[in-house]
């Protein structure tokens, strides 16, 4: 396999010391559904190693095993040797893209997704679908019943679309209410901007209420995670540099995002560009400033929310927050500050929900099975609301809940905090 010599391939240290103990099998969502070795982290490491050492061809089937990984990082977190099977699986996708680039990926991740304006144009039909009342019509006529199963689930995932995206409505500068204690740069993620505008608006309100002047640059580009997930690590670098340069323009104490995935990616910029002399220092400085919104709010003094939320609430750990950023106590603590809120822990709260970006589209069967496990656990809590600070998780959870015909609400934890702040005279909003 001389051809691999000219490519950027994972370092030997990323697989060499795997002693095949099998600890990772216990925590792998795909292994626990399939119960086959190829669907396990140990299996993926073995396949990657054999592929890179030339003992196996990099066949479509081998590469598919790399794509079937949810990249939830439960294995990487656990491995006592320090192997990161989830990272290796994603890096193998890049190897394949260097060997046989897919044209559509260049168009999608290189042209469309990085530019919010283009994305807003492309998703306009979705907003019209809801805005013009077509969705209501479809439901009223029970037209979803004629959709294939997978399309029906995807339709159910679709959050209520804002008619205008947040980028179009949110001011660049939202002044602090009262004294300005912090200057916060708000990184508005693509999914938040397009699908969860209300939640990000809520996050900005909560920060402004607590002494933050929030600056939301309009020209942010995609954090890069979708491109990386599809093996275009090369495209991430350009996106990283654009975002770093953009936020350097303002004098900021901290850069906050309310998207778990964006946060974990932005925090990696420093590492990503560490070998680029022109950018290493700037990227490091940028990443050091990045905080998830719950992580940031947990470390500043907060005004006590006066409104009540009388509901049983549970919390699902997004992989990119729990393992990507080691943030898990903060959102729980924030929720517990709300009067009336009955917090109940979700069993296996940090087990992947099966969303993993677009796995419901690309790996429908596995993604659905993993989601069922999550729903079984959710049922045990008796919760009326499930909070989770990740748009991908939220959409996935929503699909699972709708499928079971439940009335459970899916929200961002900070949206609940905002609700408690905004509720007048402490009255219950529920």
């Amino acid at each position, binding site marked *: 396999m001389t051809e691999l010599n000219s490519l950027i391939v994972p370092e030997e240290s990323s697989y060499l010391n795997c002693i*095949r103990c*099998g600890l990772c*099998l*216990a925590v792998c969502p795909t292994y626990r559904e399939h*119960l*086959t*070795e190829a669907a396990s982290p140990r299996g993926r490491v073995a396949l990657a190693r054999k592929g890179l050492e030339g003992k*196996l061809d990099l066949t479509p089937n081998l590469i598919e*095993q790399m794509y079937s990984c949810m990249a939830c990082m439960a294995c990487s977190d656990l491995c*006592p040797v320090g192997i990161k099977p989830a990272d290796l699986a994603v890096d193998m996708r890049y190897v394949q893209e260097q060997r046989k680039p897919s044209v559509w990926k260049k168009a999608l991740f290189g042209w469309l997704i990085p530019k919010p304006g283009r994305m807003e144009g492309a998703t306009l039909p979705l907003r019209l679908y809801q805005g013009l009342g077509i969705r209501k019509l479809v439901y009223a006529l029970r037209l979803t019943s004629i959709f294939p199963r997978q399309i029906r689930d995807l339709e159910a995932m679709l959050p209520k679309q804002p008619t205008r995206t947040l980028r179009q409505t949110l001011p660049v500068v939202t002044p602090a209410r009262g004294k300005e204690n912090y200057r916060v740069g708000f990184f508005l993620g693509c999914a938040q901007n397009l699908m969860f505008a209300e939640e990000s608006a809520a996050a900005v309100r909560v920060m402004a209420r607590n002494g933050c002047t929030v600056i939301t640059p309009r020209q942010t580009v995609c954090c890069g995670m979708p491109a990386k997930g599809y093996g275009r690590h090369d495209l991430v670098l350009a996106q990283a540099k654009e975002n770093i340069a953009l936020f350097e323009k303002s004098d900021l104490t901290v850069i906050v995002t309310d998207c778990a995935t964006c946060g974990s990616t932005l925090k990696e910029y420093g590492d990503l560009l560490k070998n680029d002399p022109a950018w290493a220092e700037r990227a490091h400085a940028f990443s050091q400033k990045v905080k998830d919104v719950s992580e940031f709010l947990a470390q500043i003094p907060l005004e006590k929310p006066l409104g009540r939320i009388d509901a049983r609430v549970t919390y699902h750990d997004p992989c990119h927050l729990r393992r990507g950023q080691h943030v898990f106590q903060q959102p729980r603590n924030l929720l517990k500050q709300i009067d009336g809120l009955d917090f109940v822990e979700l069993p296996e709260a940090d087990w992947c929900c099966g969303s993993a970006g677009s796995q419901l589209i690309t790996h429908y069967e596995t993604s659905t099975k993993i989601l069922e496990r999550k729903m079984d656990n959710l049922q045990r809590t008796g919760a009326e609301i499930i909070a989770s600070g990740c748009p991908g998780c939220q959409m996935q959870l929503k699909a699972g809940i709708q499928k079971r015909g439940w009335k459970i609400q899916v929200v961002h934890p900070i949206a609940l905090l905002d609700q408690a702040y905004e509720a007048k005279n402490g009255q219950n909003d529920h």
Partner: protein
Amino acid sequence: MDKTIIEKLVKAVGRQGVLSTPEDLAVYSYDGTFSEGLPGVVVLPSTTDQVSAVVKIAAEACIPIVPRGMGSGLAAGSVPLPGGSIVLCLTRMNRILEIDTENAVVRLKAGVVTADLQAAVEQVGLFYPPDPSSIRHSTIGGNVACNAGGPRCLKYGVTGDYVMGLTVVLADGTILRTGQKTIKDVTGYDLNALFTGSEGTLGIVTEVLLRLVAKPSHAQTALAEFTSLDDASKTVNAILTAGIVPATLELLDQTALICVEEAMHLGLKTDIEAALLIETDGADLQAVQREIQEAGRISTENGARAVTVAQTEAERSSLWKARRSVSAALGRKAPNKLGEDITVPRSAIPSVVQKLREISAKYGLPIVIFGHAGDGNLHPNILFDRRDPDQWRRVEQMVAEEFEVSLAAGGTLSGEHGVGVLKQPYLEKALGPISIRLQRQIKQALDPQNIMNRGKIFPA
């Protein structure tokens, strides 16, 4: 593998249950060791009848069958030998069939993960004590096949002490059922004991009936730190001869502590030569506390620098997390490790530990020592790089010497991992010719074609 055989297998277990791509074969070529061997085909049955059908196909064509669970074995017992065998993976037979609280027994399929079994019975106040470090990534079928042990076996005994009945698919595909829900049974030979620990060479265990005990309501865990490894190993006997039977009494040497601390960041001391992890358990909190304090006092008397008792469940579980991660954490130090599980009469532990250190010094490769010191079961792990032929040659000599040390001390080759392939060269020396002849006759009687895990325990 021959196409007609694959077609027959597909007919027996369905297309979903037969794997034969190069990628699938590659990932079923290994277990928890460095050994590798490609299978001819991989079959994942869902029922005992399907296992029986597969064995009949194999018997007819005289193809070896390698049974396998989650592949955590440490003796290469489920690694296929060259020549094209059928790997029979039982992970999809993973249902708990019955928890009988009145008789305190559980009946389950072979592919149930041992930790899942424990969690299920603990929910109804019962307890399945055997706890190999692989509880979360090994199956009960594999535990029975290797007669798995674990830390708690000091007080509670090994897997075989809990086996009351088995469903076994024999080498001609017939289905044998042994035992029933009775504590006592001397009707005929003890076939449960025969199949337990037979490493799949006599038949394939597909269903297990296990005895359970009441869940101990209290446990106390302590960590004793020693600046001298010798002091630590002497303390083991001092505690046990004082009339205390801890649930566990585990030894970890300095390298083991360093590796775990690097991996887990639990705040373990790494400037000491050894630590003992001691746990007492029972129904009476005061008795449990008294025993742990007594064990702590004896440790201090024997040179422990400090003894810390875990105050919360979180502290306790972090100590156990540390212990269970030792074996794998050694991977941080070298690309390969070879872990043995020699077991000696516990009075011999101090002298055996000393001799292991001498072997390490003599060959210039590290031997990490940890294990279930309380029952004399030690895990000397040699760290090396298999790509270096000189290192590998030294490793082979070191292993031979380790076994000599164990046998000379009145011990055995394996306490809980089994013989598999890796320990075969030393088997005759450990057992003697008469025992070997008798065991070969048993194998011949049950598996005349030699298709059940051919070449394991005894060379092909």
